[in-house]
Structure formats: structure tokens, C-alpha cells
């Protein structure tokens, strides 16, 4: 099984839930409910970032998602044509924003959690950027019940 489909919306936060609903439906047969939640959250965070940081909230720009259903993994690419994000942004340790002291209200993060959540929820995350596009590639392994 190697199958792929691509979906696109314009850069409007109101449309992100549509895209995520469609992608969730596509992955449904291959993942557990928890894994579907993980994929949906990662996808939404990635698209929000493109719209908020890449396109600075401007509507009418293209956000594309390619879903590849492979035998052992699902590959989700979020593709945009905005200025790329800084190359080191993805490098921070995964649990960074959640290393707060819960007793100190000032430390609790109000933002800066998106990329960390993506890294925690996906098995592989990679950012590929060239002249024509940026591509955030997120991979979720399919765990088959031992049989």
C-alpha cells in the first residue's frame, strides 16, 4: 500500500479544521485514536505556524498538505511558499517549553509550544526548504498489532 493524496486550503485559520478533518479520515484505518490525535495536533500546529509566522496572517496564500499512506508509515508534508523559518528553530530539545516550574505562574508558557508538540507527537520531523517551497515533513510510524 503506497497511496498519496494532496489537499490545499488558503492561508485562513478558519479553514485549518477542515483540512485536519479530511486528513484524520484518511489516516483512520491505520492508526489508533491516540495516534490520530497526535497526527491531528501536529498537522494543525504546523499549518498554524505557516499561516501565522510564514504568511504573517495574510489570507489568500497557498497551504498544501500531502499525505502519503505507506505500508509502515504515514508521511505528512506541509508545504508553503512563504519565507522559510530559521534553520535552527527545529533543533531545540523536544521538551523545552514544558520544563516549567508549575509553582511559578510566570514560567507557564502561553506560546512557543507548537514545534515541541510536533516533535513529541511524530516519529520523525524534517524541514526541507529550497527556492520554490518549504516542506515540513512529519512521519508517523504505523504500529501493527503483533499477529
Amino acid at each position, binding site marked *: 500500500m503506497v497511496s498519496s493524496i494532496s489537499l490545499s486550503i488558503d492561508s485562513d*485559520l*478558519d479553514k*485549518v*479544521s477542515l483540512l485536519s478533518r479530511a486528513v484524520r479520515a484518511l489516516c483512520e484505518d491505520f492508526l489508533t*485514536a*491516540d495516534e490520530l*490525535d497526535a497526527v*491531528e*495536533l501536529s498537522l*494543525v*500546529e504546523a499549518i*498554524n505556524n505557516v*499561516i*501565522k509566522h510564514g504568511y504573517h496572517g495574510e489570507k489568500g496564500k497557498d497551504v498544501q498538505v500531502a499525505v502519503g499512506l505507506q505500508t509502515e508509515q504515514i508521511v505528512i508534508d506541509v508545504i508553503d511558499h512563504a519565507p522559510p523559518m530559521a534553520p535552527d528553530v527545529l533543533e531545540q530539545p523536544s521538551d523545552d*517549553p*514544558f520544563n*516549567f516550574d*508549575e509553582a511559578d*505562574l*510566570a514560567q*507557564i*508558557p*502561553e*506560546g512557543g*509550544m*507548537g514545534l515541541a*508538540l510536533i516533535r*513529541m*507527537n511524530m516519529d520523525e520531523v524534517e524541514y526541507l526548504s529550497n527556492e520554490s517551497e518549504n516542506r515540513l515533513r512529519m512521519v508517523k510510524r504505523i504500529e501493527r498489532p503483533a499477529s
Partner: protein
Amino acid sequence: MLSTDVRKNVLVVRVAEKRIDASKAPLFKDEIAKCIDAGQSQIVLDLSGVDFIDSSGLGALVSCLKRLGPRGSLAVAGATGAVSRLFTLTRMDKVFTLHPNVDSAVDQLSA
């Protein structure tokens, strides 16, 4: 987006949206801020009707908590599935007290 109700001096805020995501978080934050600015300090947020929150929604909750400050309490009731999963994953279950339902949250805050 929100419907409110006062029980035993506790403000119960029911979120009538299925998703608190980046498209809804700003309005959500403003609406809760209004309740806080109106003087409410014991607040239970009923999330039983919500099935998805992203980091913007979670950030909005944290912002409300900060606005409320140490004088108040913001408890969360009815978080399940992806919503409760997000609280655990981000360690926000240490920041917000999670209750299975509104009744138990109200009882604790009014005690």
C-alpha cells in the same frame, strides 16, 4: 462561544465550541478575560463539549490563569480524549486542576 452559570459562588463557563484552535483562541481568551475583569475569581471551565485544543487554545487558558492571578482559581472539568491528552503531554495537568465533571470542580472550589 461560551455560556455561563453561577453555582455556589463559582462561575461555571461552558465552552460551546468543539474546537479551541488558533481561529478561536483570541475570542475565547477575551471572553474569559471579561468574566475575570467583572470580578469572578472562582472559575470552572467545562470542556466536556470540546474535542480538540491546539497550543493556541492552551496558551489562551494559561493567559486567563495569569490574568486571574494568585487570588483566583481556574479549574477544568470534563476534559477527555485529545483534550486531556494535551494537558498531560504539556504538563499543564500540574497547572490546572482537572476534574471529571463540573459538579466535582464546583464542590472543590466552593469548599
